[in-house]
Protein backbone atom coordinates (compact mmCIF):
# COMPACT_ATOMS: atom_id res chain seq x y z
CA UNK A 1 0.00 0.00 0.00
CA UNK A 2 1.31 3.39 -1.02
CA UNK A 3 -1.31 5.62 0.55
CA UNK A 4 -0.85 7.28 3.94
CA UNK A 5 -4.45 7.37 5.13
CA UNK A 6 -3.74 9.20 8.38
CA UNK A 7 -2.17 12.07 6.45
CA UNK A 8 -5.01 12.07 3.90
CA UNK A 9 -7.74 12.22 6.55
CA UNK A 10 -6.00 14.93 8.58
CA UNK A 11 -5.40 17.05 5.49
CA UNK A 12 -8.97 16.51 4.21
CA UNK A 13 -10.28 17.58 7.62
CA UNK A 14 -8.09 20.70 7.60
CA UNK A 15 -9.12 21.66 4.05
CA UNK A 16 -12.82 21.04 4.70
CA UNK A 17 -12.97 23.31 7.73
CA UNK A 18 -10.44 25.93 6.60
CA UNK A 19 -12.01 27.04 3.33
CA UNK A 20 -15.76 27.30 3.81
CA UNK A 21 -16.31 28.34 0.17
CA UNK A 22 -15.86 24.67 -0.65
CA UNK A 23 -19.14 24.03 1.17
CA UNK A 24 -21.01 25.91 -1.54
CA UNK A 25 -20.06 23.20 -4.03
CA UNK A 26 -20.81 20.59 -1.37
CA UNK A 27 -24.29 22.10 -1.17
CA UNK A 28 -24.81 21.74 -4.92
CA UNK A 29 -23.66 18.13 -4.71
CA UNK A 30 -25.84 17.45 -1.68
CA UNK A 31 -28.87 18.89 -3.45
CA UNK A 32 -28.08 17.00 -6.64
CA UNK A 33 -27.74 13.62 -4.99
CA UNK A 34 -30.55 13.84 -2.45
CA UNK A 35 -33.78 12.10 -3.20
CA UNK A 36 -36.78 11.08 -1.20
CA UNK A 37 -38.36 7.71 -0.95
CA UNK A 38 -42.04 8.32 -1.15
CA UNK A 39 -43.11 4.68 -1.08
CA UNK A 40 -45.98 4.14 1.25
CA UNK A 41 -45.33 1.18 3.52
CA UNK A 42 -47.19 -1.90 2.50
CA UNK A 43 -49.73 -1.81 5.29
CA UNK A 44 -51.99 -4.76 6.01
CA UNK A 45 -55.12 -4.47 3.94
CA UNK A 46 -53.57 -1.99 1.53
CA UNK A 47 -54.25 -2.13 -2.19
CA UNK A 48 -50.98 -3.87 -2.99
CA UNK A 49 -51.99 -6.95 -1.04
CA UNK A 50 -53.82 -9.79 -2.68
CA UNK A 51 -57.49 -9.16 -2.12
CA UNK A 52 -58.24 -12.78 -1.18
CA UNK A 53 -55.55 -12.80 1.49
CA UNK A 54 -56.56 -9.49 2.95
CA UNK A 55 -57.41 -9.66 6.62
CA UNK A 56 -60.83 -8.19 7.21
CA UNK A 57 -61.24 -6.74 10.68
CA UNK A 58 -64.87 -5.57 11.01
CA UNK A 59 -65.51 -2.86 13.52
CA UNK A 60 -61.85 -1.89 13.66
CA UNK A 61 -59.94 1.11 12.39
CA UNK A 62 -60.45 0.23 8.70
CA UNK A 63 -64.19 0.09 9.10
CA UNK A 64 -64.43 3.23 11.19
CA UNK A 65 -62.32 5.01 8.61
CA UNK A 66 -64.42 3.62 5.75
CA UNK A 67 -67.70 4.60 7.42
CA UNK A 68 -66.46 8.07 8.28
CA UNK A 69 -65.15 8.54 4.76
CA UNK A 70 -68.40 7.32 3.18
CA UNK A 71 -70.48 9.51 5.52
CA UNK A 72 -68.30 12.44 4.59
CA UNK A 73 -68.77 11.72 0.90
CA UNK A 74 -72.55 11.49 1.29
CA UNK A 75 -72.58 14.82 3.09
CA UNK A 76 -70.31 16.36 0.49
CA UNK A 77 -72.57 14.96 -2.21
CA UNK A 78 -75.62 16.59 -0.70
CA UNK A 79 -73.74 19.87 -0.45
CA UNK A 80 -72.03 19.86 -3.80
CA UNK A 81 -75.04 18.57 -5.75
CA UNK A 82 -74.26 18.23 -9.43
CA UNK A 83 -70.51 18.65 -8.86
CA UNK A 84 -70.22 15.19 -7.38
CA UNK A 85 -69.38 12.85 -10.24
CA UNK A 86 -67.46 9.62 -10.45
CA UNK A 87 -63.77 9.86 -11.28
CA UNK A 88 -64.18 7.13 -13.85
CA UNK A 89 -66.62 9.24 -15.81
CA UNK A 90 -64.28 12.23 -15.62
CA UNK A 91 -61.34 10.14 -16.83
CA UNK A 92 -63.40 8.79 -19.76
CA UNK A 93 -64.22 12.28 -20.93
CA UNK A 94 -60.63 13.53 -21.03
CA UNK A 95 -59.57 13.45 -24.68
CA UNK A 96 -56.83 11.00 -25.62
CA UNK A 97 -54.63 13.70 -27.14
CA UNK A 98 -54.40 15.27 -23.67
CA UNK A 99 -52.56 12.19 -22.41
CA UNK A 100 -50.31 12.21 -25.48
CA UNK A 101 -49.38 15.87 -24.92
CA UNK A 102 -48.89 15.19 -21.20
CA UNK A 103 -46.59 12.25 -21.98
CA UNK A 104 -44.48 14.31 -24.37
CA UNK A 105 -44.13 17.16 -21.87
CA UNK A 106 -43.30 14.77 -19.05
CA UNK A 107 -40.53 13.28 -21.16
CA UNK A 108 -39.12 16.71 -22.06
CA UNK A 109 -39.28 17.81 -18.41
CA UNK A 110 -37.55 14.60 -17.28
CA UNK A 111 -34.72 14.98 -19.79
CA UNK A 112 -34.27 18.65 -18.87
CA UNK A 113 -34.20 18.02 -15.14
CA UNK A 114 -31.80 15.09 -15.44
CA UNK A 115 -29.59 17.08 -17.83
CA UNK A 116 -29.39 20.11 -15.55
CA UNK A 117 -28.78 17.91 -12.53
CA UNK A 118 -25.89 16.03 -14.20
CA UNK A 119 -24.34 19.28 -15.44
CA UNK A 120 -24.66 20.91 -12.00
CA UNK A 121 -23.07 17.92 -10.31
CA UNK A 122 -20.20 17.75 -12.79
CA UNK A 123 -19.58 21.47 -12.46
CA UNK A 124 -19.57 21.22 -8.66
CA UNK A 125 -17.18 18.24 -8.75
CA UNK A 126 -14.79 20.12 -11.04
CA UNK A 127 -14.84 23.22 -8.86
CA UNK A 128 -14.43 21.22 -5.68
CA UNK A 129 -11.46 19.23 -7.00
CA UNK A 130 -9.79 22.46 -8.08
CA UNK A 131 -10.46 24.08 -4.69
CA UNK A 132 -9.12 21.11 -2.72
CA UNK A 133 -5.99 20.97 -4.86
CA UNK A 134 -5.32 24.70 -4.42
CA UNK A 135 -5.85 24.51 -0.65
CA UNK A 136 -3.56 21.50 -0.47
CA UNK A 137 -0.88 23.54 -2.25
CA UNK A 138 -1.36 26.36 0.27
CA UNK A 139 -3.24 28.70 -2.08
CA UNK A 140 -6.51 30.13 -0.76
CA UNK A 141 -9.15 29.50 -3.39
CA UNK A 142 -12.04 31.92 -3.85
CA UNK A 143 -15.52 31.04 -5.07
CA UNK A 144 -15.11 32.72 -8.45
CA UNK A 145 -11.75 31.06 -9.21
CA UNK A 146 -12.99 27.58 -8.36
CA UNK A 147 -16.19 28.14 -10.31
CA UNK A 148 -14.27 29.18 -13.45
CA UNK A 149 -12.32 25.94 -13.39
CA UNK A 150 -15.48 23.94 -12.72
CA UNK A 151 -17.26 25.50 -15.69
CA UNK A 152 -14.27 24.89 -17.93
CA UNK A 153 -14.15 21.18 -17.07
CA UNK A 154 -17.88 20.49 -16.67
CA UNK A 155 -18.49 19.04 -20.15
CA UNK A 156 -15.64 16.53 -19.89
CA UNK A 157 -16.82 15.48 -16.44
CA UNK A 158 -20.41 15.13 -17.75
CA UNK A 159 -19.11 12.61 -20.31
CA UNK A 160 -17.40 10.66 -17.54
CA UNK A 161 -20.57 10.78 -15.42
CA UNK A 162 -22.65 9.48 -18.32
CA UNK A 163 -20.44 6.47 -18.93
CA UNK A 164 -21.45 4.36 -15.88
CA UNK A 165 -25.02 5.64 -16.22
CA UNK A 166 -25.30 4.33 -19.79
CA UNK A 167 -23.76 1.03 -18.72
CA UNK A 168 -26.27 0.71 -15.89
CA UNK A 169 -29.15 1.23 -18.35
CA UNK A 170 -27.67 -1.32 -20.74
CA UNK A 171 -27.32 -3.74 -17.84
CA UNK A 172 -30.93 -3.20 -16.83
CA UNK A 173 -32.48 -3.54 -20.29
CA UNK A 174 -30.26 -6.24 -21.77
CA UNK A 175 -29.96 -8.52 -18.75
CA UNK A 176 -32.36 -7.89 -15.89
CA UNK A 177 -35.51 -7.27 -17.96
CA UNK A 178 -34.97 -10.40 -20.13
CA UNK A 179 -34.33 -12.36 -16.93
CA UNK A 180 -37.71 -11.33 -15.53
CA UNK A 181 -39.37 -12.09 -18.89
CA UNK A 182 -37.81 -15.57 -18.95
CA UNK A 183 -39.21 -16.34 -15.51
CA UNK A 184 -42.64 -15.03 -16.44
CA UNK A 185 -42.78 -17.00 -19.71
CA UNK A 186 -44.41 -20.41 -20.32
CA UNK A 187 -41.10 -22.21 -21.00
CA UNK A 188 -40.27 -25.48 -19.28
CA UNK A 189 -38.55 -25.14 -15.92
CA UNK A 190 -35.31 -26.71 -17.21
CA UNK A 191 -34.95 -24.16 -20.00
CA UNK A 192 -35.93 -21.40 -17.59
CA UNK A 193 -33.27 -22.50 -15.13
CA UNK A 194 -30.60 -22.69 -17.83
CA UNK A 195 -31.43 -19.30 -19.34
CA UNK A 196 -31.78 -17.79 -15.88
CA UNK A 197 -28.34 -19.02 -14.83
CA UNK A 198 -26.73 -17.76 -18.04
CA UNK A 199 -28.35 -14.36 -17.67
CA UNK A 200 -27.51 -14.20 -13.97
CA UNK A 201 -23.85 -14.96 -14.67
CA UNK A 202 -23.78 -12.30 -17.37
CA UNK A 203 -25.49 -9.84 -14.99
CA UNK A 204 -22.89 -10.48 -12.29
CA UNK A 205 -20.05 -10.03 -14.79
CA UNK A 206 -21.71 -6.82 -15.93
CA UNK A 207 -22.08 -5.65 -12.33
CA UNK A 208 -18.35 -6.09 -11.72
CA UNK A 209 -17.67 -4.22 -14.97
CA UNK A 210 -20.01 -1.47 -13.82
CA UNK A 211 -18.13 -1.11 -10.51
CA UNK A 212 -14.78 -0.95 -12.34
CA UNK A 213 -16.11 1.67 -14.77
CA UNK A 214 -17.69 3.74 -11.96
CA UNK A 215 -14.48 3.83 -9.90
CA UNK A 216 -12.35 4.54 -12.98
CA UNK A 217 -14.69 7.36 -13.99
CA UNK A 218 -14.61 8.72 -10.42
CA UNK A 219 -10.81 8.84 -10.43
CA UNK A 220 -10.90 10.12 -14.01
CA UNK A 221 -13.01 13.06 -12.85
CA UNK A 222 -10.10 14.15 -10.66
CA UNK A 223 -7.64 13.55 -13.51
CA UNK A 224 -9.68 15.82 -15.81
CA UNK A 225 -9.09 18.75 -13.46
CA UNK A 226 -5.66 18.03 -12.01
CA UNK A 227 -3.92 16.61 -15.06
CA UNK A 228 -5.84 18.65 -17.66
CA UNK A 229 -6.93 15.59 -19.67
CA UNK A 230 -9.81 14.85 -22.02
CA UNK A 231 -12.47 12.46 -20.73
CA UNK A 232 -11.03 9.49 -22.65
CA UNK A 233 -7.48 10.05 -21.37
CA UNK A 234 -8.83 10.71 -17.89
CA UNK A 235 -10.86 7.50 -17.91
CA UNK A 236 -7.81 5.53 -19.01
CA UNK A 237 -5.76 7.13 -16.26
CA UNK A 238 -8.47 6.44 -13.69
CA UNK A 239 -8.59 2.81 -14.78
CA UNK A 240 -4.79 2.56 -14.65
CA UNK A 241 -4.71 3.91 -11.08
CA UNK A 242 -7.53 1.61 -10.01
CA UNK A 243 -5.72 -1.39 -11.48
CA UNK A 244 -2.30 -0.45 -10.17
CA UNK A 245 -3.38 0.61 -6.67
CA UNK A 246 -6.43 -1.61 -6.28
CA UNK A 247 -6.04 -2.18 -2.52
CA UNK A 248 -5.41 1.53 -1.76
CA UNK A 249 -8.54 2.58 -3.67
CA UNK A 250 -10.71 -0.11 -2.06
CA UNK A 251 -9.49 0.81 1.44
CA UNK A 252 -10.22 4.48 0.73
CA UNK A 253 -13.72 3.46 -0.40
CA UNK A 254 -14.25 1.55 2.86
CA UNK A 255 -12.97 4.50 4.91
CA UNK A 256 -15.37 6.81 3.10
CA UNK A 257 -18.27 4.42 3.69
CA UNK A 258 -17.43 4.57 7.40
CA UNK A 259 -17.12 8.38 7.22
CA UNK A 260 -20.57 8.54 5.60
CA UNK A 261 -21.90 6.38 8.43
CA UNK A 262 -20.33 8.75 10.99
CA UNK A 263 -21.91 11.78 9.36
CA UNK A 264 -25.27 9.93 9.36
CA UNK A 265 -24.77 9.17 13.03
CA UNK A 266 -24.04 12.84 13.73
CA UNK A 267 -27.33 13.73 12.03
CA UNK A 268 -29.18 11.25 14.26
CA UNK A 269 -27.52 12.64 17.41
CA UNK A 270 -28.63 16.13 16.39
CA UNK A 271 -32.15 14.86 15.78
CA UNK A 272 -32.59 13.41 19.29
CA UNK A 273 -32.89 16.70 21.27
CA UNK A 274 -35.25 18.04 18.58
CA UNK A 275 -37.44 14.94 18.91
CA UNK A 276 -37.52 15.30 22.70
CA UNK A 277 -38.58 18.93 22.33
CA UNK A 278 -41.30 17.95 19.85
CA UNK A 279 -42.65 15.28 22.24
CA UNK A 280 -42.70 17.81 25.08
CA UNK A 281 -44.54 20.20 22.75
CA UNK A 282 -47.13 17.56 21.85
CA UNK A 283 -47.67 16.89 25.55
CA UNK A 284 -48.14 20.62 26.07
CA UNK A 285 -50.69 20.70 23.27
CA UNK A 286 -52.60 17.83 24.85
CA UNK A 287 -52.78 19.74 28.13
CA UNK A 288 -53.87 23.03 26.60
CA UNK A 289 -54.91 23.68 22.99
CA UNK A 290 -53.93 27.34 23.43
CA UNK A 291 -50.30 26.28 23.78
CA UNK A 292 -50.41 25.87 20.00
CA UNK A 293 -50.11 29.65 19.60
CA UNK A 294 -46.57 29.42 20.96
CA UNK A 295 -45.72 25.87 19.94
CA UNK A 296 -46.60 25.88 16.24
CA UNK A 297 -44.24 28.76 15.36
CA UNK A 298 -41.58 27.06 17.49
CA UNK A 299 -42.10 23.78 15.62
CA UNK A 300 -41.77 25.71 12.37
CA UNK A 301 -38.47 27.25 13.46
CA UNK A 302 -37.21 23.87 14.62
CA UNK A 303 -38.05 22.23 11.30
CA UNK A 304 -36.28 25.01 9.41
CA UNK A 305 -33.24 24.65 11.71
CA UNK A 306 -33.21 20.89 11.14
CA UNK A 307 -33.37 21.26 7.37
CA UNK A 308 -30.47 23.75 7.48
CA UNK A 309 -28.40 21.51 9.76
CA UNK A 310 -28.95 18.33 7.73
CA UNK A 311 -28.21 20.06 4.42
CA UNK A 312 -25.06 21.56 5.90
CA UNK A 313 -23.89 18.24 7.35
CA UNK A 314 -24.51 16.57 4.02
CA UNK A 315 -22.55 19.32 2.20
CA UNK A 316 -19.62 19.06 4.62
CA UNK A 317 -19.61 15.28 4.22
CA UNK A 318 -19.44 15.64 0.43
CA UNK A 319 -16.52 18.09 0.66
CA UNK A 320 -14.64 15.88 3.11
CA UNK A 321 -15.08 12.71 1.07
CA UNK A 322 -14.18 14.39 -2.22
CA UNK A 323 -11.10 15.86 -0.52
CA UNK A 324 -9.96 12.40 0.57
CA UNK A 325 -10.24 11.11 -3.02
CA UNK A 326 -8.35 14.08 -4.42
CA UNK A 327 -5.58 13.69 -1.83
CA UNK A 328 -5.40 9.94 -2.45
CA UNK A 329 -5.12 10.56 -6.18
CA UNK A 330 -2.35 13.09 -5.62
CA UNK A 331 -0.45 10.73 -3.31
CA UNK A 332 -0.72 7.86 -5.77
CA UNK A 333 0.34 9.77 -8.88
CA UNK A 334 3.31 11.24 -7.05
CA UNK A 335 4.86 7.77 -7.23
CA UNK A 336 3.73 7.01 -10.79
CA UNK A 337 4.15 9.11 -13.92
CA UNK A 338 2.46 7.37 -16.93
CA UNK A 339 -0.51 9.14 -18.51
CA UNK A 340 -3.14 7.65 -20.82
Amino acid at each position, binding site marked *: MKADYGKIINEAFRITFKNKWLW*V*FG*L*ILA*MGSSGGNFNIPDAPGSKTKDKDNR*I*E*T*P*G*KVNDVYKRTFEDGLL*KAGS*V*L*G*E*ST*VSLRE*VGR*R*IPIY*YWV*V*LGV*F*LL*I*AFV*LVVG*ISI*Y*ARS*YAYGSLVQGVDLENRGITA*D*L*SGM*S*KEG*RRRAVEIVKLELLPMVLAFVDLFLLWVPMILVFMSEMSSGVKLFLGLVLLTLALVFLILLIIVSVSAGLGRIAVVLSDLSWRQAFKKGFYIFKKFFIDVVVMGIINCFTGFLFGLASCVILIPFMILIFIGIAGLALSPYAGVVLFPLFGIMI*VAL*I*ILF*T*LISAIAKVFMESTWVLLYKQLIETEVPVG
Partner: protein
Amino acid sequence: MDNKVFASFWLRALAHVLNALVLSIDAFVLMYLVVSFLSYDVFVFINSLLWFLLFAIFVRPFIWFLLWPVLISEYGGDVGKLICGLKIVHEDGSNLTFKRAMFREYIAKMAAGALFGIGYYWIFKTEKKQGWHDMLSDTYVVKEKSGRLFVSLVALVVVLVLNAGLAVLSVRSYLGNESLKRDVTSILEEIGKSSSPDTSNKVYEPLDLKPLPTPPTFY
Protein backbone atom coordinates in the same frame (compact mmCIF):
# COMPACT_ATOMS: atom_id res chain seq x y z
CA MET B 1 -15.89 48.05 -13.89
CA ASP B 2 -14.60 50.63 -11.42
CA ASN B 3 -16.82 53.50 -12.63
CA LYS B 4 -20.01 51.43 -12.36
CA VAL B 5 -22.52 51.77 -9.56
CA PHE B 6 -23.44 48.39 -8.15
CA ALA B 7 -27.12 47.71 -7.47
CA SER B 8 -28.20 47.42 -3.86
CA PHE B 9 -30.02 44.43 -2.42
CA TRP B 10 -33.30 46.31 -2.05
CA LEU B 11 -33.35 47.54 -5.64
CA ARG B 12 -32.72 44.01 -6.80
CA ALA B 13 -35.47 42.78 -4.49
CA LEU B 14 -37.85 45.31 -6.06
CA ALA B 15 -36.94 44.00 -9.51
CA HIS B 16 -37.69 40.52 -8.23
CA VAL B 17 -41.12 41.63 -6.98
CA LEU B 18 -41.89 43.10 -10.41
CA ASN B 19 -40.94 39.77 -11.99
CA ALA B 20 -43.23 38.02 -9.54
CA LEU B 21 -46.04 40.33 -10.70
CA VAL B 22 -45.47 39.20 -14.25
CA LEU B 23 -45.52 35.58 -13.16
CA SER B 24 -48.67 36.07 -11.07
CA ILE B 25 -50.83 35.87 -14.19
CA ASP B 26 -51.09 32.10 -13.58
CA ALA B 27 -52.92 32.64 -10.31
CA PHE B 28 -55.46 34.90 -12.02
CA VAL B 29 -56.07 32.42 -14.85
CA LEU B 30 -56.60 29.66 -12.28
CA MET B 31 -58.98 31.83 -10.28
CA TYR B 32 -60.96 32.59 -13.44
CA LEU B 33 -61.19 28.90 -14.32
CA VAL B 34 -62.32 27.91 -10.85
CA VAL B 35 -64.94 30.59 -10.53
CA SER B 36 -66.27 30.28 -14.07
CA PHE B 37 -66.67 26.56 -14.35
CA LEU B 38 -66.70 24.99 -10.89
CA SER B 39 -70.19 23.74 -9.96
CA TYR B 40 -71.53 25.02 -13.26
CA ASP B 41 -70.21 22.37 -15.60
CA VAL B 42 -67.78 20.14 -13.80
CA PHE B 43 -66.53 18.41 -16.96
CA VAL B 44 -65.66 21.68 -18.64
CA PHE B 45 -64.00 22.73 -15.38
CA ILE B 46 -61.88 19.60 -15.04
CA ASN B 47 -60.95 19.70 -18.70
CA SER B 48 -59.90 23.35 -18.45
CA LEU B 49 -58.06 22.64 -15.20
CA LEU B 50 -56.08 19.81 -16.77
CA TRP B 51 -54.99 22.01 -19.67
CA PHE B 52 -54.16 24.75 -17.22
CA LEU B 53 -52.05 22.37 -15.12
CA LEU B 54 -50.29 21.16 -18.23
CA PHE B 55 -49.49 24.75 -19.09
CA ALA B 56 -48.54 25.77 -15.54
CA ILE B 57 -46.38 22.75 -14.79
CA PHE B 58 -44.67 22.14 -18.13
CA VAL B 59 -45.14 24.84 -20.76
CA ARG B 60 -44.76 27.92 -18.56
CA PRO B 61 -41.50 26.82 -16.87
CA PHE B 62 -40.18 25.89 -20.30
CA ILE B 63 -41.01 29.38 -21.63
CA TRP B 64 -39.40 31.07 -18.63
CA PHE B 65 -36.51 28.64 -18.85
CA LEU B 66 -35.64 30.05 -22.27
CA LEU B 67 -37.09 33.54 -22.02
CA TRP B 68 -35.21 34.76 -18.94
CA PRO B 69 -31.71 33.89 -20.26
CA VAL B 70 -32.66 35.34 -23.68
CA LEU B 71 -33.70 38.63 -22.07
CA ILE B 72 -30.57 38.71 -19.91
CA SER B 73 -28.20 37.99 -22.80
CA GLU B 74 -29.94 40.34 -25.26
CA TYR B 75 -30.93 43.27 -23.05
CA GLY B 76 -28.99 42.73 -19.84
CA GLY B 77 -31.86 41.81 -17.56
CA ASP B 78 -35.31 40.39 -17.04
CA VAL B 79 -38.45 42.56 -17.02
CA GLY B 80 -38.05 43.66 -13.40
CA LYS B 81 -34.39 44.60 -13.78
CA LEU B 82 -35.01 46.54 -17.00
CA ILE B 83 -37.75 48.58 -15.32
CA CYS B 84 -35.55 49.30 -12.29
CA GLY B 85 -32.68 50.39 -14.56
CA LEU B 86 -30.44 47.47 -13.64
CA LYS B 87 -28.17 45.45 -15.86
CA ILE B 88 -26.41 42.16 -15.37
CA VAL B 89 -22.90 42.35 -16.81
CA HIS B 90 -19.90 40.08 -17.07
CA GLU B 91 -16.84 40.97 -14.95
CA ASP B 92 -15.27 42.68 -18.01
CA GLY B 93 -18.39 44.87 -18.41
CA SER B 94 -19.81 43.08 -21.46
CA ASN B 95 -23.24 41.50 -21.85
CA LEU B 96 -23.66 37.92 -20.74
CA THR B 97 -23.73 35.15 -23.33
CA PHE B 98 -26.84 32.96 -23.45
CA LYS B 99 -24.89 30.05 -21.97
CA ARG B 100 -23.59 32.12 -19.06
CA ALA B 101 -27.07 33.55 -18.46
CA MET B 102 -28.49 30.02 -18.34
CA PHE B 103 -25.76 29.02 -15.91
CA ARG B 104 -26.44 32.05 -13.69
CA GLU B 105 -30.18 31.56 -13.64
CA TYR B 106 -30.38 27.83 -13.04
CA ILE B 107 -27.19 26.45 -11.56
CA ALA B 108 -25.64 29.39 -9.73
CA LYS B 109 -29.01 30.39 -8.29
CA MET B 110 -29.52 26.81 -7.12
CA ALA B 111 -26.49 27.25 -4.87
CA ALA B 112 -27.53 30.75 -3.76
CA GLY B 113 -31.03 29.52 -2.94
CA ALA B 114 -29.78 26.65 -0.77
CA LEU B 115 -30.26 26.96 3.00
CA PHE B 116 -33.25 29.27 2.50
CA GLY B 117 -31.43 31.71 0.22
CA ILE B 118 -28.31 32.33 2.32
CA GLY B 119 -26.37 33.11 -0.87
CA TYR B 120 -28.43 36.24 -1.49
CA TYR B 121 -27.39 37.61 1.91
CA TRP B 122 -23.87 38.09 0.48
CA ILE B 123 -25.23 41.00 -1.60
CA PHE B 124 -25.23 42.94 1.69
CA LYS B 125 -21.80 41.72 2.71
CA THR B 126 -19.62 42.20 -0.35
CA GLU B 127 -18.22 45.48 -1.61
CA LYS B 128 -19.35 44.85 -5.20
CA LYS B 129 -22.75 43.62 -3.97
CA GLN B 130 -22.39 40.12 -5.34
CA GLY B 131 -24.53 37.20 -4.21
CA TRP B 132 -23.20 33.66 -4.54
CA HIS B 133 -24.86 33.35 -7.93
CA ASP B 134 -22.99 36.45 -9.13
CA MET B 135 -19.65 35.17 -7.82
CA LEU B 136 -20.16 31.73 -9.35
CA SER B 137 -20.98 33.14 -12.77
CA ASP B 138 -18.53 36.10 -12.67
CA THR B 139 -21.25 38.70 -13.01
CA TYR B 140 -22.25 42.01 -11.42
CA VAL B 141 -25.57 43.78 -11.29
CA VAL B 142 -25.01 47.47 -12.06
CA LYS B 143 -27.23 50.52 -12.35
CA GLU B 144 -27.47 51.28 -16.03
CA LYS B 145 -30.34 52.34 -18.27
CA SER B 146 -30.59 49.78 -21.05
CA GLY B 147 -32.96 51.69 -23.33
CA ARG B 148 -35.57 48.99 -22.91
CA LEU B 149 -37.43 50.69 -20.10
CA PHE B 150 -40.43 51.57 -22.28
CA VAL B 151 -40.85 48.04 -23.68
CA SER B 152 -40.53 46.52 -20.21
CA LEU B 153 -43.05 48.93 -18.76
CA VAL B 154 -45.48 48.13 -21.58
CA ALA B 155 -44.98 44.40 -20.91
CA LEU B 156 -45.66 44.88 -17.21
CA VAL B 157 -48.73 47.05 -17.85
CA VAL B 158 -50.13 44.51 -20.32
CA VAL B 159 -49.75 41.74 -17.74
CA LEU B 160 -51.30 43.87 -15.00
CA VAL B 161 -54.23 44.83 -17.26
CA LEU B 162 -54.71 41.16 -18.13
CA ASN B 163 -54.66 40.29 -14.42
CA ALA B 164 -57.19 43.00 -13.65
CA GLY B 165 -59.39 41.87 -16.56
CA LEU B 166 -59.29 38.29 -15.35
CA ALA B 167 -60.15 39.43 -11.82
CA VAL B 168 -63.18 41.38 -13.09
CA LEU B 169 -64.30 38.46 -15.24
CA SER B 170 -63.91 36.14 -12.24
CA VAL B 171 -66.11 38.35 -10.06
CA ARG B 172 -68.73 38.56 -12.82
CA SER B 173 -68.65 34.81 -13.35
CA TYR B 174 -69.05 34.21 -9.64
CA LEU B 175 -72.03 36.55 -9.44
CA GLY B 176 -73.65 34.82 -12.42
CA ASN B 177 -72.91 31.29 -11.23
CA GLU B 178 -75.87 30.56 -8.95
CA SER B 179 -74.86 26.96 -8.46
CA LEU B 180 -71.41 27.91 -7.17
CA LYS B 181 -72.82 30.65 -4.94
CA ARG B 182 -75.25 28.18 -3.36
CA ASP B 183 -72.47 25.61 -2.83
CA VAL B 184 -70.07 28.16 -1.35
CA THR B 185 -72.77 29.44 1.03
CA SER B 186 -73.61 25.91 2.15
CA ILE B 187 -69.99 25.01 2.69
CA LEU B 188 -69.36 28.22 4.66
CA GLU B 189 -72.41 27.49 6.84
CA GLU B 190 -71.18 23.95 7.48
CA ILE B 191 -67.73 25.25 8.39
CA GLY B 192 -69.27 27.89 10.65
CA LYS B 193 -71.32 25.28 12.49
CA SER B 194 -68.43 22.89 13.00
CA SER B 195 -65.78 25.45 13.93
CA SER B 196 -67.73 27.37 16.56
CA PRO B 197 -69.43 24.88 18.86
CA ASP B 198 -71.21 26.48 21.77
CA THR B 199 -69.41 24.66 24.54
CA SER B 200 -70.25 27.04 27.36
CA ASN B 201 -73.59 25.53 28.41
CA LYS B 202 -73.51 22.31 26.48
CA VAL B 203 -74.29 19.15 28.42
CA TYR B 204 -72.52 16.18 26.93
CA GLU B 205 -74.55 13.03 26.69
CA PRO B 206 -72.78 9.77 27.44
CA LEU B 207 -71.64 8.00 24.28
CA ASP B 208 -73.53 4.93 23.24
CA LEU B 209 -70.55 2.65 22.95
CA LYS B 210 -71.20 -0.83 21.62
CA PRO B 211 -68.70 -3.60 22.30
CA LEU B 212 -66.45 -4.39 19.36
CA PRO B 213 -66.99 -7.75 17.68
CA THR B 214 -64.51 -10.43 18.58
CA PRO B 215 -61.58 -10.30 16.19
CA PRO B 216 -61.03 -13.43 14.10
CA THR B 217 -58.27 -15.77 15.17
CA PHE B 218 -55.52 -16.60 12.72
CA TYR B 219 -54.03 -19.66 14.33
